[in-house]
């Protein structure tokens, strides 16, 4: 009898130890397949590196991190099913989703399951719905649209400007904000149009722009369409300057549009690769043959955010994490993070960049 008791106690102890050492599961979600899969790839590389680094330092609260990858292909329906899968896998933190149209429906699933999420989606609605679990580590379209629109109004005074979007939650939101900022400066866009993303032929739009004498295109949408529009504009003998949003960071734009990519400007947060504190991490990425462009560093920073929030809260429970994230200040590779009551960054700072010879850099002020 005594022996059985000891054995039972021992087993129970074993189970306890096991529990204490169970891995913490964190997740990323985004377009791992589909037409924006290259962004998903960036997110995964960033997150994998971050988790390897955190685990090498002993993990979070003594537990190792395990990464789950969800593929929503930027499809809102698939995003919800990915979210449900992740809830079943008992994740404690989500970095995602990427497309605003995926993030918005998925965030409600995470909210019901008390899972905090840090996203790079820029549509204002992401944080405007009062969900307590949503944090945004990127700026908002109304902020980036304002910066882009005012830059265009100042820099291209007197030129004809067209505002075009791709009908996505992100693209339309951004284009609307750019148009609003232009109007605010007394500039009336010559044309306001929408296109269908995923097509290859935009010659109809290009001809229309040429007819209207448009020289500057303020575009809300993704880089793949911009590359095609630029190529077809060149064929039609039309020289266009494009102003876009954060998605134009993708170097695919240059491979696809060639030299005409030099006419592309975009707004993005200050380049994390230029952040001196991030230099060691940038070097580690480059050593691993990964260029830390676009969303790579954001994914890394999201994992750092979770690590620091959990350490400060000494817990991975939702209420504790949420309180720590909202109140705390976090040092990450993309700079210091502080969240406001809505879950937006307090200082999101957008800068105008321009592509030149296959590299992007701050555009002339």
């Amino acid at each position, binding site marked *: 009898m005594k022996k059985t008791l000891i054995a039972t106690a021992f087993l129970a102890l074993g189970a306890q130890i096991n529990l204490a050492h169970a891995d913490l599961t964190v997740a990323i979600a985004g377009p791992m*397949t*589909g*037409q924006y*899969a*290259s962004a*998903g*790839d960036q997110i995964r590389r960033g997150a994998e590196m971050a988790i390897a680094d955190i685990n090498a330092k002993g993990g979070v609260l003594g537990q190792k991190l395990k990464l789950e990858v969800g593929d929503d292909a930027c499809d809102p329906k698939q995003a919800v099913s990915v979210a449900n899968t992740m809830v079943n896998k008992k994740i404690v933190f989500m970095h995602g989703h990427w497309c605003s149209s995926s993030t918005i429906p998925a965030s409600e699933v995470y909210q019901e399951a008390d899972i905090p999420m840090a996203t790079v989606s820029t549509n204002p609605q992401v944080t405007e719905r009062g969900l307590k679990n949503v944090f945004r580590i990127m700026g908002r379209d109304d902020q980036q649209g304002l910066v882009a629109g005012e830059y265009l109004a100042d820099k291209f005074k007197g030129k004809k400007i067209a505002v075009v979007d791709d*009908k996505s939650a992100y693209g339309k939101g951004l284009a609307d904000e750019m148009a609003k900022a232009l109007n605010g400066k007394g500039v009336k866009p010559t044309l306001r*149009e*929408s*296109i*269908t993303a*995923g*097509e*290859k*032929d935009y*010659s*109809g*739009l290009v*001809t*229309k722009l*040429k*007819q209207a*004498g448009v020289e500057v295109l303020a575009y809300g949408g993704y880089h*793949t369409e911009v*590359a*095609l529009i630029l*190529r*077809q504009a060149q*064929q*039609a*003998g039309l020289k266009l300057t494009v102003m876009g949003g954060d998605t134009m960071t993708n170097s*695919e734009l240059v*491979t*696809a549009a*060639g030299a005409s990519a030099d006419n592309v400007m975009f707004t993005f947060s200050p380049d994390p690769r230029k952040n001196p504190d991030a230099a060691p991490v940038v070097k580690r990425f480059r050593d691993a043959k990964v260029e830390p462009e676009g969303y790579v560093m954001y994914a890394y920073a999201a994992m750092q955010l979770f690590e620091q929030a959990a350490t400060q809260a000494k817990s991975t429970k939702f209420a504790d994490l949420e309180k720590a994230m909202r109140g705390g200040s976090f040092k990450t590779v993309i700079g210091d993070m502080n969240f406001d009551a809505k879950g937006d960054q307090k200082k999101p700072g957008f800068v105008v960049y321009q592509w030149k010879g296959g590299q992007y850099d701050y555009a002339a002020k």
Partner: protein
Amino acid sequence: MAYALQQLINGLTLGAVYGLIAIGYTMVYGIIGMINFAHGDIFMVSAFIAVTAFTLLAAFDITSLPLAITAVLIVAIFFTSAYGWAVERMAYRPLRGSTRLAPLISAIGMSIFLQNMVQLTQGARVKPIPPVIEGGIVLWTTPDFTVQIAWTQILIILVTVVLMVAFTWLITQTSFGRQQRACEQDSTMTALLGINVDRTISLTFMLGAALAAVAGVMVTVYYGVVDFYIGFVAGIKAFTAAVLGGIGSLPGAMLGGLLIGLIESFWAAYLSAEYKDVATFAILILVLMFRPSGLLGRPEVEKV
């Protein structure tokens, strides 16, 4: 006026590409009565073959333009036809004689398979090629607009016309054409008359794939970028073209393709590009309401 002419040229080019792909849908439907949803992805595969071939030619320093394009066309047609054959052999032939739904599901599966295969082997990033043919002819200069036709647009329209003539000849004048039409009308009877129906069906798939291959090469030359996703939208549009023209009818597929290309470009030109797909599909619905078998389709006669 000049603006309308430019949009007409744009529309014709786009329509020619849709038409070439649509023929693949319509021929397969004609002969075995199924919609080959993997056809759009066959087109995508051919675009990738074209990119690979162009890159290889550049590596071997072959710069003569007519030679390069001919070589790429031959390579693309050869390999894409092989894909067409293999897809039919693996995904549809084993299901022949089962319910009509089975090959349809199999086609959707094949489409997903091809997309993912290309994504895994070629990567998710877009594959660009440097402009192969640059420039064009200025047709008409008015004070406020210059009408331009790019050499690539001329090439696409010319190649499509030549292929259409050759194809009509093949179907109406040759013995293969007769066999193909016979299988369409009554495959059991054709088999009883000593014609290898399976072989004819295989050849039909290969022909459809060959035309998709030409469309793939043209798209690669014209747009200069391909990714593993281009088959989806192109496939849907071409399928719509086939239905609009009357599925099962070859001239119908071409006509449907041209119509869709023109509707798209004129709608985008004078109304809003935002609703051009709505326009396309609204016209499709209208046509189907008044002519349920499409513009040039023959009404299906129920055999008793």
